[in-house]
């Protein structure tokens, strides 16, 4: 069941330049939420109307809270960043399919880039086997300590070399050549493609979380699509990132553009 409700803001702080951590009381949905799912954040502004999709970064079942970590890139996220503790905010969630966690994946490889980093945190917490994490940032980094708490190894890259290696997560993967039973990745499409190709080459299956511009967030309007292979057919179809995704298997995605 997807819920549409008012969440109460517990904390909304800048954890890195332009990056905010928003903790929400969202009892209604924490019980259902999975890692890799997202919520739609509605806003009070009247100039723009569409909700903003933000991934779930952490789920705290005891406290009944969700943590979202988001980058302020435009009008909507800017408005969200100004919400004060104890104010309430309209939310819809949990949305999307989320990552598929089997009993024991054995060794898992997590690869996140930019705002693709936060959705991997809850996943990292829940994965049972050994987890190696690759996080790529432009300059400033965030959530590293949290990942270090839950993961066996955390590799970092920054574009300017200010922390970890200078380069991107692909450089890290090629440097360290991790082994694993599943790659989980979230980030910009070019990165996902590179991660997919890297993993395919090593015959490691991939679960990739996509971003696409959305309107409804629940599969009704068909504006958010990912080109995927049709089962048992030499044909493709446009599937809904918000409902059938955001997580797709790397092998089902048509990587032509």
């Amino acid at each position, binding site marked *: 069941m997807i819920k549409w409700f008012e969440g109460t803001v517990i904390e909304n702080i800048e954890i890195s330049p332009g990056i905010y951590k928003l903790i929400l009381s969202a009892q209604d949905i924490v019980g259902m939420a999975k890692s890799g799912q997202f919520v739609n954040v509605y806003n009070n502004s009247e100039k723009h109307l569409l909700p903003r999709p933000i991934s779930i970064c952490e789920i705290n079942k005891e406290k009944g809270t969700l943590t979202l970590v988001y980058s302020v890139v435009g009008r909507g996220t800017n408005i969200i960043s100004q919400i004060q503790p104890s104010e309430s905010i309209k939310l819809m969630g949990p949305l999307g399919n989320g990552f598929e966690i089997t009993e024991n994946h054995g060794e898992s490889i997590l690869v996140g880039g930019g705002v693709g980093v936060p959705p991997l945190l809850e996943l990292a917490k829940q994965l049972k086997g050994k987890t190696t994490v690759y996080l790529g940032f432009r300059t400033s980094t965030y959530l590293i300590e949290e990942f270090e708490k839950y993961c066996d190894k955390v590799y970092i890259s920054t574009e300017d070399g200010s922390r970890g290696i200078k380069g991107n997560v692909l450089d890290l993967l090629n440097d360290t050549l991790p082994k694993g039973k599943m790659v989980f990745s979230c980030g910009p499409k070019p990165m996902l493609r590179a991660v997919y190709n890297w993993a395919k080459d090593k015959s490691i299956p991939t679960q990739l979380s996509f971003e696409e511009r959305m309107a409804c*967030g629940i599969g009704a309007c068909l504006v958010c699509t990912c080109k995927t292979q049709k089962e048992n057919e030499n044909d493709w179809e446009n599937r809904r990132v918000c409902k059938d995704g955001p997580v797709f298997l790397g092998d089902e995605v048509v990587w032509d553009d």
Partner: protein
Amino acid sequence: MTNLKTKVNIAGVELKNPVMTASGTFGSGKEYSEFVDLNELGAVVVKGVANVPWKGNASPRVAETYGGMLNSVGLQNPGVHAFVKEDILFLRKYDTKIIVNIAGRSVEDYCEVAEVLSNADIDMIELNISCPNVKEGCVSFGVNPHTVEAVTKEVKKYCKQPLIVKLSPNVADIAEIAKGAEAGGADAISLINTLLGMVIDIHKRRPVLANIMGGLSGPAIKPVAVRMVYQVAQAVKVPIIGMGGISNGDDAIEFMLAGASAVAVGTANFFNPRATIDVKEGIENYMKKYGISNIKDIVGNITV
């Protein structure tokens, strides 16, 4: 004022109230049924279906604008056969009317869909000759009154249910187009579809939409929609279903005063998943406030 009469009759089909969903914004009803009791709606108008599955346009397909949005879905749909198999059964569980929006690239396409649907358990067919996001067919039928008349007449032959013709606002004289639809045998007219628009990402220096242009919907277009409903109401006798930016009861009343017998809620669902219910309740509140017991007394009831 305990007994508000909110029933409206569109071409012989009685809706319990005038509130519908706008095609393409409400899927086939299932997704929004988590937030909205579909029994509360006059009708659910489902996403356009064609004779065969359509893949739709490339992504991105949406761009937000001031008071609205552009979409360039391009009528992605699983085809009428898949629709008939999967969606009707779900909707029939509810006490609401089912209206199916149909898309085509040629008159034959439209007729084929209409023929399949004429034997399906649905209440009305809405002929979409106004989608700006598909190159062949569709909107090109919608900009000339003679073509509108011809395609309406042809499709009508295959319909056992009443036929609504949905008009494009991207024309110079909407009343002429509406007359064409009426002359072709349309049982009702719905309007407006989206206005053709474009948004450019000035940082990437390219259009936001992969399809370059898309259809503008939402509150921003409401004054254009109200004007067109008013103009069409002066020009034809068949009932009108009004839409374009309706977000609350007051907006719906504005369309009904302009001459619409029913209204549809589209883009508002995206920013308020319960928009349809808010519209319905808002209409009732207006009726109570002004002591209007029968909703029919609102339709076209303005002094100019």
